């Protein structure tokens, strides 16, 4: 009588428990992975803005007397100064956004399409560049995305302001920007 009341779990009960734990674990793992990938994107956007702020400060400091500018180029996921002779930033180190963010599949696109950003001696973004005289209108938005999440980070580069925002998916055209 006593031994009957202390019977163990049945195989079915164990299997159900294991299945439930598995489902919950996979959901938690998936959510955590997605969250981490979003954080990597955010980190990449922050690093990008930080790099641009440094470039702007340098253009203000060193371009004011000479009338030169600080020109940067985004190639895939790397930002680097161009080698133009009038570029005051040409000795700046390059920044590998994929490496500093720690993400997996970083992709950066811009709208309107332009890989060059030039800060002039006034610290504002020029509409044309040292290496290319074509006019690219402002503002420009850089979208940071990866395959693990639909959420994208947006970096808005305007005449004299840089803002970070996000959008839920590429289908949602407009980004929501952080408050200043």
């Amino acid at each position, binding site marked *: 009588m006593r031994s009957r009341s202390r019977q163990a779990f049945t195989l079915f009960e164990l299997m159900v428990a294991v299945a439930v734990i598995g489902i919950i674990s996979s959901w938690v793992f998936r959510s955590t992975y997605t969250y981490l990938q979003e954080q990597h994107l955010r980190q990449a956007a922050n690093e990008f803005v930080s790099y641009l702020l440094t470039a702007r400060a340098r253009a203000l400091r060193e*371009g004011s007397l000479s*009338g*030169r*500018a600080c*020109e940067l180029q985004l190639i895939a996921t790397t930002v680097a100064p161009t080698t133009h002779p*009038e570029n005051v930033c040409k000795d700046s180190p390059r920044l590998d956004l994929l490496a500093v963010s720690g993400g997996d599949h970083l992709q950066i696109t811009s*709208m309107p399409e332009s890989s060059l950003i*030039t800060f*002039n*001696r*006034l*610290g*504002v*973004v*020029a*509409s*044309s*560049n*040292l290496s290319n005289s074509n*006019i690219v*209108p*402002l*503002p420009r*938005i850089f979208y940071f995305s990866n395959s693990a999440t639909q959420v994208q980070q947006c970096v*808005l580069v*305007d*005449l*004299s*302001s840089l*803002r970070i*925002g996000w959008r839920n998916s590429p289908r949602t055209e*407009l*980004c*929501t*920007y952080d*408050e*200043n």
Partner: protein
Amino acid sequence: MKTSFCRLLALMKASSPSRRTVAMQHGFTLVELLMAVALGSVVLASLGGFLLVSELRVSAKIQRNLASKDAATRAIHLMREEALLSSYIRGPVVPASDFCDDAPLAYVQRGDPTGKLTICYKLLDSKNPPSDLPDIYQNAFDGQCVLLRKGPSYKPNGDLDTSSDSVIQVLLVGPAQPCTFTVALTSTITLGAATYSRNADIQLKLDSSKPYSFSARVPSNPAYDGNDFYQYTCSSEESQAGSCSYADLAVLHLKQAKDYVGATSKENIVYFDNPASAYTLLDQRSGSASCTYAQCYVEERRGGLGVQLSFVDALVFTDKEIRPR
């Protein structure tokens, strides 16, 4: 001796807890302990979470304030720099026909009466946004204070790109409204529907913070008294002959003082509204077509302006700068 021992034994027996007392002094059960730990954890976690969230909010607010002050400083820097590129400052035009007309602050570039190069600043009215506000700005501001700039864009060398169209750009995004942007022009002259000046006292107030007050001054010749503008109107003969070719002379001008002797204690710079080709530079004493540091007579080729300059270090035209020797 035996009696004493028996008494001590009896006393010890009396002072020791009975079985009943021991049974009543049992500790917490495991369930009670677990519940206490769980409740304690919930209370501590709530408190910790509250403190953490408060700290994060305060930190974020400080960051926003810093970013906002930085943005305001840069916007003011640009507004002052752009004043230095301009010929005069214009107040609102009544009635307003375009974006810049009802802007409280507009800079008119030298030699640009057409208004193509006018740069103006205005707060965004979110309920009534300008029709030419780029789509990309839609949804970008949530009740925030936004200072807009309309004007030509910039070249990499820091010059205005005079070949580009004027576009609206966001100069500053501050905290939530209300914010104010007020401009007071000093030493003004009214011509037509607008008021012009060379000096403006500007106040920018974001949120409930202390206002940023600054002055914008366009480059002015010495002894400016607010009355050195004049409006040139082509004569009927000129119009008929088609010789009124200086379209930029037909609207508004800066009239130089008739004679100007530079002070020895400072660098003397005189600004002109048109390209150097619109003027004749003469050394009046010799009559030769040269302009010396000691004496330089500047005359508009078409007539109207003549100014005798002495000891002037630089003559700044819209296209170039001349430093007489």
